[in-house]
């Protein structure tokens, strides 16, 4: 292992020159006896591109919800997660998440700088090149910290945000991805998470709650009127997210065939049921069906079906989507009573949705779909596993995220000054404006 590590340091130095890159590429990247399946590879590469598109979709989803003076700063939080976390991922994120296991807690640094991660398939996905699996997983790492940005929208410093997402991904996303998808202790325990209910939505949603509590509410929250400045932008983002989610969930089959088809269908059913349920509940409760409610309900349905997508059948997906629409609606309507300003509802949608979906997988998983039964099919142990998974991931995410935020606050300060907050982040932090009359 030590020898490999030294080799990777050498490789890293070579990365600086293009010639060096080609030289080190030859041993690891050479095609070997095991040929990848072309259909599987094509689907995973397309899925990776679909998941990539979700982050700009999230940027529009969030961008429309803030006040016009903060539209670019908010969009930039999501957009900059793409390049920053992509580089973190190829250097250390991938090896920490999926590298050879250390005590079930973290991956080793053996694959530092993608050392040894080549075109030969890995044990994670035996029919696609290892690099295809790597880049597909990288897109998940990218969108997850961007989801948290909804909690501290309109008041966090950009410099602190960059430091925060690097620390958060390294110390929360990478270990939790390892626990569940990298063969870590939760995987060994039998916790199932098809496409990221725990790894993506519970980590980001619970961290969002911690962030909203630590950074404090926006100036004027609940006194000033701060409605979304551009809901059509939010709806455009919603459409892109829904579209990209097919890559997120159906791609998580890591192959192209029966399982990806089932996950594709359950994903769509979850989204549709979440949307219709939200609208019905809202119409009854508030008297009017809103487009913003429809958009929120669809994202709640998608987030909630995510952990269950490749484990449950269509009718179970319908039940999970209905639960998503109704419970997330209640969560969002309770927010102002609880007093924290999770400005764009990262916790209420992703945290709550991720938890419901992870429980849903424990209830409705069917061996006929993907080899594992849940409580409803006679295996109560699966539900217990899921609850342990939720508890472990939620507590770890909350505590670690709180520590990271306190550290960043002590180092550079989390929050912009009052003048910047009133003037708008776009002009003061970025020197640009989204709109001119």
């Amino acid at each position: 292992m030590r020898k490999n590590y030294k080799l990777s340091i050498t490789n890293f130095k070579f990365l600086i020159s293009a010639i060096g890159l080609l030289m080190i590429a030859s041993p690891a990247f050479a095609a070997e006896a095991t040929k990848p399946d072309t259909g599987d590879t094509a689907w995973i590469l397309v899925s990776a591109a679909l998941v990539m598109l979700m982050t700009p979709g999230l940027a529009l989803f969030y961008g429309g919800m803030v006040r016009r003076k903060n539209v670019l700063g908010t969009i930039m939080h999501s957009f900059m997660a793409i390049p920053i976390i992509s580089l973190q991922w190829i250097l250390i994120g991938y090896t920490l998440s999926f590298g050879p296991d250390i005590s079930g807690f973290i991956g080793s640094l053996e694959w530092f700088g993608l050392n040894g991660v080549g075109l030969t398939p890995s044990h994670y996905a035996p029919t696609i090149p290892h690099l295809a699996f790597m880049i597909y997983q990288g897109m998940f790492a990218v969108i997850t910290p961007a989801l948290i940005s909804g909690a501290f929208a309109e008041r966090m410093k950009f410099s602190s945000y960059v430091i925060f997402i690097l620390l958060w991904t390294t110390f929360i996303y990478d270990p939790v991805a390892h626990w569940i998808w990298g063969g870590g202790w939760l995987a060994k325990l039998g916790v199932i998470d098809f496409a990221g209910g725990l790894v993506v939505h519970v980590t980001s949603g619970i961290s969002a709650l911690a962030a909203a509590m630590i950074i404090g509410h926006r100036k004027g929250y609940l006194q000033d009127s701060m409605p979304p400045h551009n809901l059509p932008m939010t709806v455009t983002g919603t459409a892109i997210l829904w579209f990209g989610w097919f890559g997120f969930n159906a791609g998580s089959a890591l192959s192209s065939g029966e399982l990806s088809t089932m996950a594709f269908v359950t994903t769509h059913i979850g989204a549709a049921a979440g949307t219709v349920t939200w609208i019905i509940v809202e119409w009854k409760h508030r008297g009017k069906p809103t487009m913003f409610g429809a958009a929120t309900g669809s994202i709640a349905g998608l987030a909630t079906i995510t952990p269950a997508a490749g484990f449950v059948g269509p009718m179970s997906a319908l039940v999970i989507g209905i639960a998503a629409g109704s419970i997330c609606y209640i969560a969002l309507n309770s927010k102002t009573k609880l007093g924290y300003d999770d400005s764009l509802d990262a916790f209420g949608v992703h945290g709550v949705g991720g938890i419901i979906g992870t429980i849903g997988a424990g209830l409705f998983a069917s061996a006929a779909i993907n080899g594992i039964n849940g409580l409803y099919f006679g295996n109560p142990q699966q539900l217990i596993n899921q609850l342990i998974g939720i508890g472990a991931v939620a507590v770890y995410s909350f505590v670690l995220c709180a520590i990271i935020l306190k550290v960043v606050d002590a180092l550079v300060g989390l929050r912009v000054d009052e003048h910047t907050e009133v003037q708008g982040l776009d002009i003061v932090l970025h020197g640009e404006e989204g709109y001119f009359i």
Partner: protein
Amino acid sequence: MKMVTAIIKHFRFDDVRKALTDIGIVGMTAIEVKGFGRQKGHMEVYRGVEYEVRFLPKVKIEVAIPDEQLDKVLDVILKSAKTGDIGDGKIFIYDLQDVIRIRTGERGEEAI
């Protein structure tokens, strides 16, 4: 001369414009504005968070007229802008000191 400023509902705007041009008013200025009166604002709910929208959108039109047209102008605005519901708006009338047509330098009623 008088300056008549009317704050009216958006959907009455076309009728008011037509009624004024029909009685021979040759020019006006219109702008979209926000405000409140005794009607106050209304509540909007976004994802369960209630916001009081204090300023409601209205259209403000301004017409400069000779004194003898005032009664007729007020009459057609009242008729064409009125719905009978709250929020129909208001009319403000000012004395107009002078008017200048920039192209020719004409002043007073000639310039209207």
